[in-house]
């Protein structure tokens, strides 16, 4: 038996149940039946498809009638008035809201260009640099050696240690000595962020009285003793 004939039988059964008053269509999920029908319809089984359509329109007609009845029930003011007048408590009414409350998703402060630029910076740039080289020719589901995964902060660390090496000749020095003012504003803040990280990681020390930065004895990661 083809799937289409099986569907026809189910729809015919549903139609008969509705016609003899054994089933209400208000809670019946007709959408899934029609989606199934839409996916199964074929030229080779046109006759069966027409029969399904025939039964389907009868069912829809009944569903519309039931909906009409439902709406008229709701529009019967007296019943609603009675219901609210005799409702047991505020808590019982408030419970209704717990089941139907929803929050709209709103992104008011992000413009489309901002989102697009963020996507380019965060995803496209990363994809085009390290990741492509590392994962090249490797199937996604292969057992990757975890040590081969890229360290997201590695380039930053490398730059930070390069900066540490570059300021070696001028240490001990003040903040003004360490941040080269001849550079653009971006580089200025970049160097400043290196200093903060180097302080936090213990590679640099700061003496409050003299306002001077200096080396500590901490060795740079990955460097062997020289």
């Amino acid at each position, binding site marked *: 038996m083809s799937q289409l004939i099986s569907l026809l039988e189910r729809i015919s059964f549903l139609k008969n149940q509705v016609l003899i008053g054994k089933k209400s269509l208000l809670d019946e999920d007709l959408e899934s039946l029609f989606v199934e029908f839409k996916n199964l319809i074929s030229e080779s089984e046109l006759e069966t498809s027409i029969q399904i359509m025939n039964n389907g329109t009868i069912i829809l007609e009944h569903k519309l009638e039931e909906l009409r009845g*439902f709406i008229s*029930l*709701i*529009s019967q*003011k007296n*019943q*609603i*008035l009675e*219901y*609210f*007048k*005799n*409702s047991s*408590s*505020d*808590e019982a*009414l*408030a419970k*209704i*809201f*717990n*089941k*139907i*409350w*929803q*929050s*709209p*998703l*709103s*992104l*008011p402060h992000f413009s*489309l260009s901002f*989102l*697009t630029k963020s996507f380019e910076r965060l995803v496209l740039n990363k994809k085009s640099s390290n990741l492509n080289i590392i994962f090249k020719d490797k199937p996604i589901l292969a057992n990757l050696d975890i040590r081969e995964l890229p360290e997201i902060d590695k380039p930053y660390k490398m730059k930070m240690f390069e900066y540490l090496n570059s300021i070696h000749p001028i240490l001990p020095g003040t903040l003004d000595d360490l941040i080269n003012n001849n550079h653009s504003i971006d580089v200025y803040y970049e160097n400043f962020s290196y200093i903060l990280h180097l302080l936090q990681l213990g590679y640099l020390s700061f003496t409050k009285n003299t306002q001077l930065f200096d080396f500590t004895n901490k060795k740079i990661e990955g460097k062997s003793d020289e």
Partner: protein
Amino acid sequence: MNEYTILMHLLTRTKQGISNDKLDIIGASVEELCDNLHFTGKFAKIQLHELMDQFSKAISIFNLQLKQNPFNFRWYLTQSSEIEEIFNSNPFNGKPRIAATLCTVLSLCLTNSGKIDINSVKKIRNKKDIIKDLHELEKSNFIIMEKKSNQISINPNLGYYLDIEGFLNLLENEIRKKNL
């Protein structure tokens, strides 16, 4: 940029309303969606609904749903009510009295072509200081009170937060249970 990106932006954006209340309007109308997606001609709306159908399936994994506000007919995105229930995110937690008043106002408005008299709420609720509840609901932008005519209507803003169809279904079930 693809059609989903444009949809995501339009459905989650807020813009200031033109009316005096200056409320934010969330989402987009069918016309705005078609314009921005450059869907024109006879089949523009069919094209849009097909795209939205695919889009709603794609976002369902994030528990997001595509909905239409029944009061201003704008499409927008929302989280499912189950999630809201889990996190108790409705603003009436601990305020059952306000929730019950809104429940009454909403039901009366839906069955009285949109506008009702303040006195009808007073009669049904039969509680003291019901005006205070109404003012709080007005402040929360859930109802509109017209002082001159003494009438109340639903603020379209409520349509973003309440599943109206779900509300009617629950109400109908409750009435049925009582009548049994």
